[in-house]
């Protein structure tokens, strides 16, 4: 983006460590966090069985009669949405920085496409059996298949792209090729089975938070606790990467090691998120692009991207389950409906600003 202003960014130092603080980014992040709190509160309130705020507080502290609805049904679903969105936003920000490409997302790392093809194979392959054993298979089988498929996909992309080091451009091209294979096998699988299996597969491919419980919250939360600090430590490397490989090396970045570790982080975040909620469309691609325009920086900021992803996913889930109630849409259908117009608005506004 041309004409970016960096308003009064200030470095803060503590011994050997320094951190650049940009007021606009901090403001965007804090606003996002406040929005998340509001959205979670709303999703605890709204549903087939509307609750008042005091009833929610009562059931959270364990005294109310709606404990089951709030703590076992609505809270885990809301938290899964927040955490999955944050993981996807962060993963997308890292991928776009390493690939130096605004159109890159974990899809090109083989994660989501690998997970999709595995799960569609499981759904179509098990056919009518799935309907009978949906409890066990949907609860354990699908997430495990998704995780395994996502990681296998990433390993394939990673090993094919590695050739005496990892080049961002080659990674993108290899990722395109591998994703094309996975996606088309998925399409083919969808044409082979019964049309009902195709519809069921379509719901999973779109990404859904329906019926997510604490068993879905926990893995994503653990992954975030471990991976977020790791990724934040890489902020400096990612900023240096923007200037090109030679300059980054000149600035003292060990390119291959840094890229490998950061990509691993992005892959794990996307894989865990996909296992929990399916490959929710558009969040990983749009959240970093929205975040960098909100924060007024030239490259996807990691924390703000994660917060943006969380806001987008929770807002989409709230809309998905309340707008057409009692019919519930998959959350992935709504993320793009909400996120795309906003991204378009930001693009138009940026052009207006650049002109004036």
């Amino acid at each position, binding site marked *: 983006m041309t004409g970016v202003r960096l308003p009064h960014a200030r470095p803060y130092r503590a011994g050997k460590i320094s951190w650049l603080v940009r007021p606009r980014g901090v403001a965007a992040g804090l606003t996002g966090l406040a929005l998340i709190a509001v959205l979670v509160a709303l999703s605890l309130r709204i549903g087939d069985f509307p609750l008042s705020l005091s009833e929610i507080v009562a059931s959270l502290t364990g005294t109310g009669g709606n404990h089951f609805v709030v703590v076992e049904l609505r809270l885990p679903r809301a938290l899964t949405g927040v955490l999955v969105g944050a993981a996807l936003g962060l993963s997308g920000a890292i991928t776009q920085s390493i690939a130096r*490409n*605004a*159109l*890159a997302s974990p899809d*090109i790392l083989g994660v989501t496409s690998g997970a999709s093809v595995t799960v569609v194979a499981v759904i179509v392959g098990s056919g009518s059996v799935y309907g009978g054993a949906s409890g066990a298979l949907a609860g354990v089988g699908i997430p495990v298949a998704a995780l395994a498929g996502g990681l296998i996909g990433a390993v394939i992309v990673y090993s*094919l*792209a590695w*050739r005496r080091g990892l080049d961002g*451009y*080659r990674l*993108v*091209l*290899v990722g*395109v*090729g*591998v994703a*094309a*294979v996975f*996606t*088309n*096998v998925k*399409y*083919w699988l*969808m*044409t082979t089975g019964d*049309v*009902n299996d*195709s*519809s069921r597969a*379509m*719901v999973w491919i*779109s990404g859904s938070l329906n019926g997510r419980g604490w068993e879905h919250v926990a893995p994503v939360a653990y992954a975030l606790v471990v991976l977020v600090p790791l990724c934040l430590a890489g902020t400096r490397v990612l900023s240096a990467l923007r200037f090109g490989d030679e300059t980054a090396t000149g600035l003292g970045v060990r390119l291959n090691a840094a890229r490998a570790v950061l990509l691993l982080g992005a892959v794990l975040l996307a894989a865990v998120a996909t296992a929990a909620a399916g490959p929710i*469309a*558009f969040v990983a*691609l*749009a959240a970093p*692009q929205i975040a960098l325009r909100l924060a007024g920086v030239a490259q996807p900021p990691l924390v703000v991207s994660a917060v943006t992803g969380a806001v987008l996913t929770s807002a989409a889930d709230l809309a998905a389950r309340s707008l057409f109630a009692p*019919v519930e*849409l*998959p959350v*992935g*259908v*709504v*993320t*793009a*409906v909400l*996120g*795309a*117009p906003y*991204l*378009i608005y930001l*693009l*138009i*506004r*940026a*052009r*207006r600003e*650049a*002109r004036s």
Partner: protein
Amino acid sequence: MTALRPRRRRAGVLAALLTAVLAGAVLSVAIGAKSVPLGDVWHALWSPGGTESDIIVRTLRVPRTALGLLAGVALGVAGALMQGHTRNPLADPGLLGVTQGAAFAMVLAIIAFGVSNLYGYIWFGLAGALVASVGVFAIGSVGGRGGPSPLTLALAGTAVSAFLYALTSGLVLVNEQAMDVFRFWQAGSIAGRGAGVAWQVLPFIAAGLVLSLANAPGLNALSLGEDVARSLGRNVTATRALGITAVTLLTAGAVAACGALAFVGLIVPHLARALSGPDHRWLLPYSGLLGAAALLLADVVGRVVARPGELEAGVVLALIGAPFFVALVRRRKPVRL
């Protein structure tokens, strides 16, 4: 000497690609679910008598081959143009919302207007593709002076595509008939379309090809950067608009008729660029011929491997083409955009 050698090499590559397209066309006419002896095929082409094999060759295989040829050329050229204009290796010809615009319009036609024949879908698909692309270009141009920047276009296109895809998947989830059409459409195929479809999309693709060849020199200048292009006397906005129009016409024609094959146009230009280098005057024809050869051969393979059924051409192309593409990317340094 140095000027002669690349020219001779380029003519050689062009001849090789033409041969490949010809071979693909011959195989596509000769091979199918019912084995027709080559002599009968020849007979059916030049002096048809109304036998069963004559009917198969003339009403099924020839239109299918023609459509494969058209769609392959269209997507190959459109992909090369799109990647040239956006300077992004991830750009496919459907990037400006063309593919998803067509998909949404077709699904809407089924659900809201009760359209149930192929020609009807295709008109809706064409209309949807054109509207989506114009919309993206308008969004990219709003507010700024001069044409839209490639990054703005790409992002606006991605956003609109995602938006339309979301609407489409919402619609097919509530309508089983639409889902049944959509799942075959998204796999991409040139089978069972009939001669009428090829004639239906021919004007769009022909117009797109003429515009894209006219666009090649301008695109070469643009790839030096907008400022340099301007100082060389190029009108950047006009060049950009011409290219986008060409991409839209080509892709709309191909995608409406054959389904979501746009990724042909994602992979083929990278292969063609390895042969041609960055000069678009050569890259565009190479890419078009390579696209046609690849699509025809993939379609033939799809007929043979899953007998008596068929595998969609789009699926075969990905399964064979993508590993080849990955191997190429690994083996040599890619020609950068």
